[in-house]
Every structure is written in C-alpha cells, then in structure tokens.
C-alpha cells in the first residue's frame, strides 16, 4: 500500500497532511473541535479508522474507505451486562486505546483494545464487535490489573504475529504483556525480566506498565517496549526481557517507541523527564536511536527545539514509514524526519495537543 498521508489526531480534530512533489503539506482538517484520540490505517485494505472521545456524547468510531473524502459512523463496542469492574459496577467503555487488524489471512478480523481492560474483536470488518471473554475472565484481571494515570487498566498495544494470526500479544497498563498462541482461547503473562519499581515487589508476574509494545515484522520474536521503568527488548518472543535502558539512565522514561521492521536491532525512543514532571529532558527535545539492539543509544537533536521546551510525546504520537519518522507533541508541535531521525523539520507548530499520529 502506497503511503501518502499523515493522519494527526489532536484534541481539536483530525489534521491530514499529504506528501506532494513539494514535500509534506497540510491537506485539510476534519471533525474540527472534537478530540480525536486514536487514528489507524488498515494496511490490508487502506481503510482509515478514527476514534472520537466526546466529552459529552461518549466514544465514537468513524471509518473512511476513500482516504478521508467521506466518513461513516460505526457502532462503538459495548461491554456486555455480565462484565463487571472490581467494584462490582457494570463495566462501560471509557476509552479506545488501540486498533489492529487480525492478519492478512483474516481479512474481516479486527481488534480494539479498550479501557477498562476489555479486548474486542470483529469478524465482519468492524461493523460489530464482541468482547473477548477469555481475556476478560483471566484470573489475574480482578486483583492484579490496575489503572496507570487513569482509573482503570487499558489495552494500548495489540501485536499480531505476521507468521501466524492465532499468535498475538497485547500490552496493558497496568498488568503487562500477555501472549496467546491459540487465537485468544488462552492467555499467558510474558513479563519476566521487566521491573515494576512502583510496587512492593518489582518482579511481580502481573502488574507491569508497558507504555507501548512493537514487534519486528521481519523477525517477530524480537519485541520492544518503552516501559514506565525503562526500555526493554526481548529476542525470544517475550519469554524474557532484557533491560536496554541507556547507560547512566538516558534514555529511560518515555511513552513512544518506533522500530525498524527490516532490522531487529534498530529502534527509536523519545525521552521524557520522569513520571513526576513529564516535560522534555532538560527542556530540550531529542530522539534517541539504537542500531545495536539497545546496547548503545545515539541522541538526535538536529532540527528540534533545544531550550524552554515542554513537549511530551504520547505513546501513539510517533510513527514510522520507511525512512520517514513523524511525531506530534502535547504542545501542538509536529516534527518530521526523512532520514531516519538524523535531522528533523517542523511540519506544524500550533496544533492542539497531539494525541496520535499514523502514516496512511
């Protein structure tokens, strides 16, 4: 699928950029005034999906099959009546945190990860969604899952193995990484080697806070995560995680991560200052890149603001396509690099808070 758009979900609408002969240029805005909390492009069929987190009217999903020329409202997933929170109250949809397609051999299957911790699936291309009961009923959910910066746990990452569509991972804040090898019938935590420094026992099996999980498409046993407690990489499908946080603690904390799908040793992160302050480290913005599987990290600053900079980049606000990377920040900046992060240019400087970006 030829990528020629950059979709930017902001607190005040969807902003679309297009690659032209003159470079990346603003094309148009849709859903102006509404918070667009998630954007997703299904690489199988080119369908664009967006989620709107209305303050008044609840969560809504829209899709476009003509590259944003028109949008169709889709019924939002609903928690069934039997689904209860730990408090005993009915579970209701609080936020949509992730979308993923179900594999190239399952053309109508889609997944949606949500708060308060439900994974939904569709077998009809997204017209209807059902709660995946096996995960909802996992014995760890009631007592070992909890919210991080939110009232309830949420599934923000869904990673389907391109070799086997029945094999996929999800990542939950807070619970950790879970793996299924049988299409979701059974689930196992995959958190060995991670650190939960905010718990009395940092080595718990469940209770970790991965911020984002990605697997290398050309070598799907290599999985990366930016975690609340550092950067981690697994080379054995999540059986064990190696801490690849930078030496002397930089890079360490952050939300976003991107990886090179043709080379399992290359990744990028965007550091932030601690979970207490949440500003750019030293108030200067940078991206860190490793080319050796996290043994060492380069700091890339060219073209990025280096003083009085308060930008934070959320977990879904960093995207990569080929040699092009883009990220949007909480202060409405949008940066783009067309040389793997060596140099960055400002694509926009006065958007609303950027919630998510996606090449499409």
């Amino acid at each position, binding site marked *: 699928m030829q990528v020629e758009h950059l979709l930017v979900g902001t607190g005040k609408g969807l902003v679309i950029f297009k690659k032209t002969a003159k470079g990346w240029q603003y094309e148009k805005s849709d859903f102006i005034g509404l918070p667009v909390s998630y954007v997703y492009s299904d690489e199988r069929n080119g369908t664009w999906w967006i989620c709107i987190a209305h303050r*008044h*009217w*609840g969560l809504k999903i829209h899709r476009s099959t003509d590259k944003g020329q028109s949008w169709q409202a889709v*019924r939002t997933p609903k*928690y069934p009546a039997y689904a209860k929170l730990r408090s005993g109250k*009915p579970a*209701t*949809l609080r936020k949509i945190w992730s979308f993923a397609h179900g594999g190239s051999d399952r053309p109508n299957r889609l997944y949606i990860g949500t708060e308060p911790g439900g994974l939904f699936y569709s077998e009809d291309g997204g017209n209807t969604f059902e709660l995946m009961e096996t995960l909802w009923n996992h014995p760890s959910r009631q007592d070992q899952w909890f919210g991080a910066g939110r009232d309830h746990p949420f599934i923000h990452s869904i990673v389907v193995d391109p070799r086997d569509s029945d094999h996929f991972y999800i990542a939950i804040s807070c619970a950790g990484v879970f793996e299924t090898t049988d299409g979701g019938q059974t689930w196992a935590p995959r958190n060995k080697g991670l650190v939960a420094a905010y718990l009395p026992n940092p080595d718990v099996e469940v209770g970790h806070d991965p911020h984002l999980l990605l697997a290398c498409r050309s070598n799907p046993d290599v999985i990366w995560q930016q975690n609340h407690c550092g950067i981690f990489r697994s080379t054995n499908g999540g059986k064990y995680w190696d801490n690849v946080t930078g030496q002397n603690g930089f890079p360490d904390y952050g939300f976003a991560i991107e990886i090179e799908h043709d080379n399992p040793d290359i990744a990028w992160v965007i550091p932030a200052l601690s979970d207490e302050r949440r500003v750019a480290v030293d108030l200067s913005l940078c991206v860190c890149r490793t080319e050796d599987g996290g043994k060492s990290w380069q700091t890339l600053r060219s073209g990025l603001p280096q003083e009085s900079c308060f930008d934070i980049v959320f977990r879904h606000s960093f995207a990569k396509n080929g040699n092009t990377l883009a990220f949007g920040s909480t202060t409405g900046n949008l940066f783009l690099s067309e040389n793997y992060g060596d140099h960055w240019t400002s694509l926009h400087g006065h958007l609303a808070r950027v919630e998510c970006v996606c090449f499409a």
Partner: protein
Amino acid sequence: MAQVRFTSALQRFYPDLKTLDLDATNIAELLEQIEAVYPGLTDYLVDESGTLRKHVNIYIGEDLIDDRTDLSDALKPQDEVLIFQALSGG
C-alpha cells in the same frame, strides 16, 4: 403526549433532528422511542449499562431528572422534556 426537544449540539450528528411528540410514561421509555426515530442517538445519551452519560442532562419541565441510572422518572402527557449537554470548558 410528552414533547421532547434536543440541544442543537446534537444536530451536528443528526442534521434532521426535530422536536418529537412521544407517548411515553417515563424517561427510559422515551429514550426507546427516540431510538426508533433516530437509530443510534441513545448511544450519545446513555452508556451501555443504560446510565445517563455524565455530561448529559435531561429536564422535565424545569427540573433535572432524579434517576440517572434507571431513568425511571415518570412522564405526564403534557410534560416538556429537554435533552441538553452539561456546560463545560475547553
């Protein structure tokens, strides 16, 4: 029949939204009948448990409804119902 009016904010999503006269004995019944006229509209007003969304208000006359969970507030034939969003900043 009770008359129900909607905030103009909902016309962004339902452009042909109009005042309705509906024969309902309580708010829950009223919402069922609204859904029959405007499919999907009640998703904007209540969550999947049927509870009124936090930032949605329903008035009967000049009074907010009491029961936001089961929507059991009774309606009389001459009642005027207003469905409105709560005011908020941002």
